[in-house]
């Protein structure tokens, strides 16, 4: 196995380092998965209460001027490496780094990720090079399945999340009422291309809900669309709420599958940490909800894409 990547652009170094630091705050273990086209940082919080899973994808062309790798063999052209201590090495010195070189090496039969940072010196124009050797573990082949990029999952509803500045303030206030946040989303009957989202919290003394209207719906690649223009990537709702069906039937309203409200209850703290990113404002955030199962966030920055899965509090 071989891996080598380098960049001489200070901006790229900063970006990569900030991204790694941010992502490592979201969950504990960090696996770096290298493929010929991309580097992924995968964080799987396997915890009892249902962990958060993060996939952070960086296209190699975006950040590295020099990149080469070779996987296990021809069939497994990927490399997966656990990097718990990478963050420690980076945080202290990256602020002024002009260049970064990464290389997988080994010393005494133990694999290391060698990180060479090029830093300025105080008085002269020459650079000094600081090398960190971070011990890494190569993930055994049999576990690679856990780190595969998830296929675009089926969702009940998908929409563009409203601007972070507004949502952040609302969530901060709501957190003081309860840790349990319920997200409702529903397609607008007036305008099929839009939907509304409501965030709500309740405790014994008060309940608060905030509604965001006119949220755009994204188009997913390759999604089949039926004659009515409804996205068919959603589930058929067979496992959905019988209660909702019953209410609709009671009202005598024939509610099309895609117009039924979708509800997911999550731990508000998990969304909060996601939204407080040190990276620049994301260009857009897509939120997918699977009724009573999971809330998925796809966060697009200029060069990278972050996927974040938050499991629902009460799964069915």
């Amino acid at each position, binding site marked *: 196995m071989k891996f080598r990547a380098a960049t001489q652009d200070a901006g790229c170094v900063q970006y990569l380092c900030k991204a790694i630091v941010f992502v490592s705050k979201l969950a504990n273990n960090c696996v770096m998965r290298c493929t010929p086209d991309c580097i992924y940082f995968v964080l799987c919080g396997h915890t009892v209460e249902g962990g958060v899973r993060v996939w952070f994808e960086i296209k190699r062309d975006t950040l590295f001027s020099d990149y080469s790798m070779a996987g296990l063999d021809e069939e497994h052209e990927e490399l997966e490496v656990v990097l718990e201590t990478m963050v420690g090495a980076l945080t202290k010195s990256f602020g002024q780094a002009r260049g970064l070189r990464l290389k997988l090496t080994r010393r005494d039969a133990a694999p290391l990720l060698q990180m060479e940072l090029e830093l300025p010196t105080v008085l002269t124009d020459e650079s000094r090079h600081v090398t960190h050797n971070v011990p890494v573990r190569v993930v055994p082949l049999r576990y690679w399945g856990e780190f595969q990029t998830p296929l675009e999952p089926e969702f009940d509803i998908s929409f563009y999340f409203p601007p972070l500045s*507004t949502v952040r303030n609302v969530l901060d206030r709501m957190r003081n009422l309860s840790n349990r946040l319920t997200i409702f989303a529903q397609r607008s009957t*007036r305008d099929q291309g839009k939907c509304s989202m*409501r965030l709500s919290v309740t405790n014994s003394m008060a309940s608060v809900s*905030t509604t965001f209207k006119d949220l755009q719906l994204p188009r997913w690649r390759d999604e089949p669309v039926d004659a009515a223009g409804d996205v068919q990537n959603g589930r058929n709702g067979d496992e959905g709420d019988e209660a909702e069906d019953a209410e609709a039937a009671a009202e005598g309203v024939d509610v099309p599958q895609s117009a039924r409200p979708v509800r997911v209850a999550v731990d508000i703290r998990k969304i909060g940490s996601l939204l407080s990113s040190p990276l620049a404002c994301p260009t857009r955030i897509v939120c997918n909800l699977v009724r009573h199962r999971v809330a998925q966030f796809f966060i697009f920055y200029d060069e990278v894409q972050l996927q974040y899965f938050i499991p629902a509090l009460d799964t069915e």
Partner: protein
Amino acid sequence: TINNANDADNESDDEFSLNSGSPAPSDGGRPPPLLYLRITNAKVVCSLLKTIQFRDLATICASVNGLKVTVEDCKSLQANVYLQTSLFSQYTLRDDEPLFFKLNYVMLLECLQMFSDTEASSPAVMELFLPDDRSAVELHLEDAGVVTDCRIRTIEPEQTLDFNFNAAALCFKVIIRSEQLKEVFSELDPHSELVEIFVSTERRLFRMSTFGDLGRGVYDFPAESEAVEMFQSPDVSVAFRYRHALLKCCLKALQASAKASIRCDQRGFLSLQFLVESADGHNCFIEFFLVPNQPEDEDEIAGSDDERH
């Protein structure tokens, strides 16, 4: 740490549909609300209300003059914020008699601040309703198309304390500028359980003293000093002691104010009134009543009476 599962039962989908507008209490067959307010300056109202948030519960009295918000502590302290009707862009009291309701003050302030931290230059518009059944206070805030609805359950209101403060038979009255008074307040020895207020008729001064392990702190405001705008002295010099912890509750209101009027009746009950000036000329009052510490509750305090003179 996550609130109990009963919360799930409170979420009913039938009130949920996002596609219908949120019903205003005045339509859909509900009787008109007992109280309706429209506030365009939520930040100002919030900052006033925060000055008396030292306990979790507040009692609100709505009358034709406006709102009076009351927070009390241990029957020894009462704080009132008066919000006149002119502070609100709309104020409607359905029946003419004053109505009382009680709720969790912390929750109310959280809801009022929902949008006040944003950098938006236009202040959020907020409506407050107390519906006919009085079960909850409803808040409706709208800012740039984002709508927030809050429901805060009300609690059975209890009679608020009446201190029988006799303004006609005062022991003394002083008015001191807050700029100087707040410095003294914040410097009071935190280890001193009691604060003594001594007003001298002969020497015409207002004195605050503390009694800590390290010694005694003494702060004098002579009647002639610039900070003292008015000095109405007692017939004979008097001294009363108050619990420092209670006096501290006044600090936020003092810091927000321009001047403080300190009146004391013959029993030593204090009435502190803080004048908060606002940019648009709507002045507001925050008032505190404090009960003096009873001599039998006091521990031995270092220093003799001679030191006072």
